[in-house]
């Protein structure tokens, strides 16, 4: 099995993000930490588990983004990926799910993977699109929110359970090659040892320049990003912790909950 896993890099804590009044874009302190999108950790772990089950399998990890993204791929190699592909896209700021998926599809298409796996969404953009878009662009079947999988390479098929509303499960049979987006909870992502991550920093990463990939023009632009309307917020209970607690208890009495 040749498996590609899409691993996005996200800012470690969105609390360090602020709106830059001048540019209208989000900005972050230059010493901000970045890490792997948690949803994609489950995707990579599942790929590694499949490789352990099916001898001769190989796992490639792919990230799209500027130079800093290479640390995300170090992490993927440290977790056990065999090869890292960095689609170097230097522009900071907005890049739509369609543009990202187009880059990945253009890169992955000729490499003929048996399986492409992504997390169900990214923690930052929360779009739930990348895996499905890659599948549609490459004309492959796709299952989202996969919570259980059984890949059967001898029959060129996979049987998966999708987790749907209320925790119900939809069972889908897909022909390979296929795309999965996996649901958190499908496994427990391994935590690579420090020495493995250190050693992974010496591994070579394949760099593909975004401008060398043939992709369609963007189909959506971001007009603005801002903080939500504060009027939508509830009442902030103020005072010392003790005063806040007393106010809450009073409210609960008034509302006849106590």
């Amino acid at each position: 099995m040749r498996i590609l896993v899409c691993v996005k890099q996200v800012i470690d804590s969105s609390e360090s993000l602020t709106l830059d009044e001048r540019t209208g874009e989000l900005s972050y302190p230059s010493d901000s930490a970045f890490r792997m999108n948690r949803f994609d950790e489950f995707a990579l772990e599942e790929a590694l588990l499949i490789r352990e089950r099916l001898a001769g399998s190989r796992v490639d990890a792919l990230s799209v983004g500027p130079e800093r993204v290479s640390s995300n791929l170090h992490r993927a190699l440290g977790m056990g990926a065999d090869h890292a592909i960095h689609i170097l896209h230097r522009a900071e700021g907005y890049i739509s799910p369609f543009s990202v998926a187009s880059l990945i599809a253009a890169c992955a298409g000729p490499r003929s993977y048996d399986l492409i796996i992504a997390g169900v969404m990214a923690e930052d953009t929360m779009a739930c699109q990348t895996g499905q878009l890659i599948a549609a662009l490459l004309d492959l079947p796709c299952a989202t929110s996969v919570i259980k999988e059984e890949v059967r390479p001898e029959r060129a098929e996979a049987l998966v359970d999708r987790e749907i509303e209320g925790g119900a499960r939809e069972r889908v049979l897909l022909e390979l090659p296929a795309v999965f987006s996996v649901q958190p909870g499908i496994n427990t992502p391994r935590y690579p040892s420090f020495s493995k991550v250190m050693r992974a920093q010496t591994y070579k990463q394949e760099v593909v320049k975004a401008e060398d990939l043939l992709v369609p023009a963007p189909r959506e632009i971001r007009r603005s990003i801002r903080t939500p309307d504060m009027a939508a917020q509830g009442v902030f209970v103020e005072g010392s912790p003790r005063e806040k607690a007393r106010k809450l208890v009073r409210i609960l009495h008034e509302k006849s909950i106590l």
Partner: protein
Amino acid sequence: MEAKPITLIAERRKGCVTQETYELLGFARAVGNGQMPIVILPGKDVLAAAQEIAEKTGCETIALSGDHLEHYNGLAYAEAIMNFLRCKADGWVCLPHTSMGYDLAPRLAVQLGASCITAVDSAGDGWLRRPVYSGRFKEEIVPQTSRVVATVLPGAFQSPAETTGSGGGVTVIEANEKKLASTTVGVAESLRRDSSLKDAEVIVAGGRGIGRRENVALLEELAAAFPKSALGASRSACDLGWFQHKHQIGVTGQTVSPKLYLACGISGAFQHVSGIRGAQIIMAINTDPHAAIFQSAHYCIREDLVTFIPILIEELNNTGH
């Protein structure tokens, strides 16, 4: 802006037309120029449900019918819906942001050459707004194509009042089954449910923000200070192993409607919040003043729960109920 045709993809769950389907009408009003959308309901034996939609909304409704459409399948649904959409030059295609909607929307968009904008919570003339970074920020996206596929967050738009005029017409279209690279074998209901959540008047729920497993005991203590209480949790806190999955509240967990919902260290992403919309009062404790949960909560407490909860328990016990 000229009026573009609007097509809504309706959904049934356990045989009933979902609330999210009717909320799509609210979205259509926001982006449209008052023109009536067309509703497509794919599935098996969908005529009665299509009639219900046509009657309630006054919209022309298409019952896209086929045995192979009994359960949702990405390829089969896309095939059937595209046969209808292909002849339309431009316009909006709207789906609920559910396990069907977000699975299907990107494929429809690629096949239509449309832009794809998902998890939308508000919209206007030519723009769509959606939450990012767990709702700390909102971005406004402007599609650059004449065709747009959008998914709409459950609960974000109000479904309009039922029409008092005449109902819309219903057309049945039989979808032909084609051999496809994916088939849905069946659906199994969830086994992991805690009935105590359904009956609880007070739910104390924890998220990733409680920091560590040891703090679950603190939440249990707080819950014990209320009669008829139960422990809830966000998905990510369950996935971390801090809570059993039977405590999970939200889209893939349970939907609850207690008198009081106390959200502790929960960021407030839609996936969780959509499960607590029935709560009478929501109180949220979080250190982050921009946490999205404060947009859903009636009362917001900006405190570290490790120091605040013991004080709250003391005060609750002092009242001597």
